[in-house]
């Protein structure tokens, strides 16, 4: 963990050298969160909600990919970070990133979050962070996956759930939160998330997906 004086630039430069996806999978929507965006968002949470969102807490990262959000949480002082993902390949990269960064607080679990259920005692996590599959690929399996991840997170978290989502999902997610009685705070909108031409169907070199960053919690 860094000293309390960690600033946004330190966080960004810590995240910069982490290994990205090697062979991103289309059906899993594996888009790399740029280090500067991750640093910006985590820093914003620290400033607005307080460093105690991460410091000394038990955090979960739903759909950790290569581990960027997990490592950012650890860098901000999380005592334990549980990083979940379904994909063997990206977990191997995340494991490498965890090892090389020396952040022993981060633990990896391979599971399908749509199948995983929280343990039968109290909600285990203090904070959940996630950048779930965007659902930009509107296939049968991907549709509404973001909402399902959010529900699973709220079910297992006693504090706040921070989600980076496709801007196109904004209305649907806010409606879903209202229906479920969740507190839903749109912290940042229209974040330009660059998606490089890594998939065959992309026409331009890079395209920007406009994203939203939410804080969601169980209001009850």
């Amino acid at each position, binding site marked *: 963990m860094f000293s309390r004086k960690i600033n946004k630039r330190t966080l960004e430069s810590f995240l910069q050298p982490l290994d990205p996806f090697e062979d991103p999978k289309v059906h899993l929507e594996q888009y790399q969160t740029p280090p500067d965006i991750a640093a910006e968002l985590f820093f914003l949470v620290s400033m607005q909600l307080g460093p105690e969102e991460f410091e*000394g807490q*038990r955090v979960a990262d739903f759909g950790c990919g290569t581990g960027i959000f997990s490592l950012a949480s650890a860098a901000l002082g999380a*005592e*334990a970070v*549980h990083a979940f993902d*379904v994909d*063997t390949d990206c*977990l*191997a990269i995340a*494991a490498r990133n965890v090892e090389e960064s020396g952040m*022993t*607080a981060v*633990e*990896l*679990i*391979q*599971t*399908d979050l749509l*199948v*995983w*259920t*929280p*343990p*039968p*005692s*109290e*909600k*285990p996590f203090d904070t959940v962070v996630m950048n779930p599959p965007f659902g930009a690929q509107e296939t049968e399996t991907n549709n509404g996956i973001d909402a399902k991840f959010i529900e699973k997170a709220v079910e297992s978290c006693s504090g706040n759930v921070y989600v980076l989502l496709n801007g196109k999902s904004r209305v649907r997610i806010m409606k879903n939160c209202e229906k479920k009685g969740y507190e839903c705070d749109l912290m940042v909108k229209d974040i330009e998330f660059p998606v490089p031409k890594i998939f065959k169907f992309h026409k331009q070199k890079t395209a920007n997906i406009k994203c939203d960053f939410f804080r969601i919690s169980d209001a009850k």
Partner: protein
Amino acid sequence: MRLLSHNLLMCNVKGCSENNYPLRILVQKSKIIEAELNPDFLRKLVTKLDWKGLHTTLISLDFHKFPEQLAEDDWKNEEFLKELHNVLMQTHIIEGKLVCPNCQREYPIVNGIPNMILKDSELK
């Protein structure tokens, strides 16, 4: 995988809904990686856990020094804190298996990562 993560995992095979938590642990390879002891975090963590289930798991792993029921005094005991910290936060299971006590389904632990992915036939 540490016991810290183990307590998050249960068997989700179709039809397996009783006696599916906690999972039994078979350790093939483990190692100790030191981490800073944080008594407040430990206490908060354990308060949220099912201590009975954890105790059973500890016994199965040959950690016999822990009481069946926790008392306030235990938290003031340095030895207890150090031992608890060691098993929950410092002991990493690198290779092994998690086994469902109900259906006996085995989940492999490879390179410290438990694999809970089920086959299509095991899901609803």
